[in-house]
Structures are given as C-alpha cells and as structure tokens.
C-alpha cells in the first residue's frame, strides 16, 4: 500500500515536473521574436562575395574602363585611368545597382573596388 502511494506520488511529481518544464508562453514568444529579428538583421546585409561580383561587373560595364584591368584591388584613378568625374559616375551606377543612396561625404572616399565593396557590404539598405 505504502509502495503504491509512493509510486503514485512519484508519478504525480513527475507530472508536475513535466508541466513546469514547458516554457511559458511569454518566453516562447520572446524567443521567436528575437529569432525573427536576428534573421532579419542578418538577411539585410549582403554577402561580401556577391557584392564583390556585382561591383566588378558594374565597373566592367563602364564605358571608359578596360575590363581586363578590373581586379578586386583596382584603384579607380591610378589603375583604371578614371578621373574624379568618372568616379562620381561609377559610384552613382553602384547606387543604382544596389538600390540605395550613398551620401556625398562617403561617396568622396570611395576610390577603389575594395572600398566600394566594404561600404556596400556594411550597409544594411543595400539590395
């Protein structure tokens, strides 16, 4: 009899324990919100290799550029023979490719393919 009671209590206790182990609705929803948010943030930054490929293809399509000279490390003025007006045009073409506006003070600093890639890859609005 005592053994049966003990077994019953144990069973009940186990039951209670399983109920308590379930996460509360609050923490569940909090976690799922946090997960969605994290995925959204991660998804909005573009993959760096994809950015590199797209930047290189935009620069190669630029009339005045010799496509064979375009490399990841190319400097617009020193290596590709562009002047500052051409550089403005290249950066504007990149803006259109990635669908966001680059402010003037940032655009003035972009002089190499690498810098364009770094800036675009670190910009959450780039598409």
């Amino acid at each position, binding site marked *: 009899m005592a053994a049966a009671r003990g077994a019953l209590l144990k069973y009940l206790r186990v039951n209670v324990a399983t109920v308590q182990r379930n996460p509360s609705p609050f923490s569940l929803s909090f976690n799922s919100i946090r997960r969605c948010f994290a995925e959204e943030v991660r998804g909005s930054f573009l993959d760096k290799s994809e950015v590199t490929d797209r930047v290189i293809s935009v620069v190669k399509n630029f009339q005045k550029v010799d496509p064979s000279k375009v490399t990841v*490390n190319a*400097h*617009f*003025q*020193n290596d590709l023979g562009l*002047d*500052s*007006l051409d550089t*403005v*045009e290249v950066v*504007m073409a990149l803006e*259109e490719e990635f669908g966001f506006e680059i402010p*003037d003070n940032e*655009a*003035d*600093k972009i*002089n*190499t393919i*690498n*810098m364009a890639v770094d800036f675009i890859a670190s910009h959450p609005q780039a598409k």
Partner: protein
Amino acid sequence: MGASRGPRLSGLQKQVLSLYRGFLRAARCKSAADRRQIESIVSAEFRRNSNQVDRKNFLYIEYLLRRGKKQLEQLQSPNTESLSQTKQS
C-alpha cells in the same frame, strides 16, 4: 588606410563633384530618353570646363558653381522635362 591613396580633394572640387552628383540624381527622375540626353549634356559640360578652366581661377569656378546650382534647381522641378543647349559661336 593604405588603399585610399589618390589625390585629396579640395573644398571647391568637392562642391563641383557634389553638383555633378546632383545633376545625375535629378536626371534619374526624368524619362529614359530625356535622362540620356541630360546626362550627355551635363557630362560634356563638366568635362569641357574641367579641361578649359584653369584650376586656380577660383572666381570663375565659383561663378560656374552658382550658375550650375541655379540650373540644377530648375532641372529638379517636375515641370522641367529636359535640357537643351545652344551653340555659342
């Protein structure tokens, strides 16, 4: 940064480049054919002045900047469809 070698821009140069950017942005809002025409006129004008105007002729460059800003304001108006140019003899 080692990668950023290249000429440092003066304040006046930055203003010119920013004006050029402004024109190219304004051109985006026009129809495709007008846009092409605006871009070719604007880039020819900037390039011509960059070759012909002495880089130390600050007064004239500032005059051109002021004139360009006025023209840009007119171009930005939605009523303006395109640019035209007349040949000076």
